[in-house]
């Protein structure tokens, strides 16, 4: 891999670090497996691109607004679950399917190119820094700042309530915590992070696309799982660090796999490889023993 490729991997790694933080918040903290992200990632991209191209917005404002809209998407999913008792996974699927149509409306088509417009990244190029150098640095700073803010939030009274609501809802209620409200805000926040990631992704790759959300949930999960397996997460600080590290390592692994000619992988194989990796990791976590043993046991039981 060239330096150029490594820096590119860092860029996407940091962006998906945001998705991983969102997945950590929903899956680990709130115990709310949220699939909305498949729709809120392209939603963030679509909103940001449409505002910049069609609306002539300042790219920073457009990016911020994309995150707010993402919060709304997550809020709707959690509302379906909390208020109407729709199964969390189903609620997420319903919202992300709706978002597919909504995104097409927002962009007025299946994609929205961001060519020859100002983005948050062109600001640095205007200053004379080459994008491939400055972008990973900028994204790194943004993602780490958000991670530290999330760490701090989870240590506040509100954040602690959110952790209790996910870990022990009965105890949380008995301690005066409105568990439903915590889910609404927590799932909203996770999707705000994901939409922000989508907005940044669209700007760095020059287009928003209706299909760019496919597999985002698995990438987020893979990052959390990879990160946690290499960095034991005794504290929130370590856990969120592990999420970002996991996202970078995951992107690196994908880049290496696609680069290795002898594997004969196409770029389109990434989803399959990721899904299989996550499956293996989950199976491994469940049993704490090797896959070989599990398969053998499986046939014995038949």
């Amino acid at each position: 891999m060239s330096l150029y490729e490594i820096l590119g991997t860092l860029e996407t790694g940091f962006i998906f670090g945001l998705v991983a933080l969102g997945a950590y918040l929903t899956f680990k903290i709130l115990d709310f497996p949220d699939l909305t992200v498949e729709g809120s990632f392209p939603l963030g991209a679509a909103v940001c691109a449409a505002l910049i191209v069609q609306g002539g917005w300042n790219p920073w404002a457009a990016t911020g607004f994309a995150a707010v809209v993402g919060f709304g998407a997550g809020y709707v999913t959690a509302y379906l679950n909390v208020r109407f008792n729709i199964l969390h996974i189903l609620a997420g699927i319903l919202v992300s399917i709706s978002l597919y149509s909504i995104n097409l409306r927002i962009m007025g088509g299946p994609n929205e190119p961001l060519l020859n417009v100002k983005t948050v990244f062109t600001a640095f190029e205007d200053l004379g820094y080459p994008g491939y150098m400055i972008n990973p640095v900028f994204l790194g700073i943004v993602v780490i700042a958000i991670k530290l803010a999330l760490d701090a939030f989870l240590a506040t009274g509100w954040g602690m309530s959110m952790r209790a609501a996910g870990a022990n809802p009965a105890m949380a209620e008995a301690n005066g915590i409105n568990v439903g409200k915590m889910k609404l805000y927590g799932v909203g926040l996770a999707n705000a992070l994901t939409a922000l990631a989508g907005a940044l992704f669209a700007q760095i790759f020059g287009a928003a696309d209706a299909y760019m959300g496919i597999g985002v949930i698995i990438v987020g999960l893979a990052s959390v799982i990879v990160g946690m397996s290499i960095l034991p997460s005794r504290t929130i600080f370590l856990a969120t660090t592990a999420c970002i590290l996991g996202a970078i390592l995951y992107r690196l692994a994908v880049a290496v796999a696609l680069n290795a000619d002898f594997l004969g992988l196409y770029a389109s194989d990434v989803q399959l490889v990721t899904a299989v990796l996550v499956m293996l990791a989950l199976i491994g976590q469940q049993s704490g023993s090797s896959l070989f043993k599990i398969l053998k046991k499986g046939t014995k039981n038949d």
Partner: protein
Amino acid sequence: MIELKDIHVTFNKDTPLETKALRGVDLAVPKGEFLTVIGSNGAGKSTSLNVMAGIAPVLQGSLRVGQNDMTNWPVQKRARSISRVFQDPKMGTCEDLTILENFALAYGRTTPRGFKFAVDPSIRLSVAERLSLLKLGLEDRLDDKVGLLSGGQRQAVSLLMATTGDTQVLLLDEHTAALDPKTADFVLQITNSIVRELKLTAVMVTHSMAQALNTGDRTIMFHQGKIIFDVAGAERDKMTVEDLLHLFKREQGEELADDSLLLG
């Protein structure tokens, strides 16, 4: 302080699984009274506590606590004045959070939470002070995750957590049942001293008749969703476990007699 009026609770109404858990319960617990509750399995003891805490759906009747009609209040709103300790030591605390963080949550029950850091030096100091009363050495383990504690330690912590702030009503549902006898005694002892010291209004469900008579001021017995027996004062002081057992058998016997009459 607590007043239940003609409370009816029915689970799975209009299905083959319909259970009438409470069938017209009237109960008034004055401020500062320590009430103990006994009764056979499924008699409705937990359900009546759940009615007070807001977890059981009330079909009919009303609940007042202090000045407020709380019949339709959500659980978290009642938690400002009512706190509880669960039977399962795992339920009362959050095992992934540290002892200190758990207390921070408990403080939030009576004082509003905000975007301030939940744990600060003043909380650390006051928690350490309260924990030292237990003489379990927990004051030196404030940053340990609660999951590392034993059942008895967790239950003692739950009890202290449930009595922070200006709690007025304490609900205890067989909170010593999951502990070994020695630990159960210890937890019962601190329960007693905390309830007395803070002058709480307390309701304690127990499966031990001896415990029911030796603890608190007044004892009631549930049977098939109703209170069938209510004793306090001198009459209660005279009472032995045998008397209670006798009463219990007589009540059940009467039920049987009624049934046989109906069948006959």
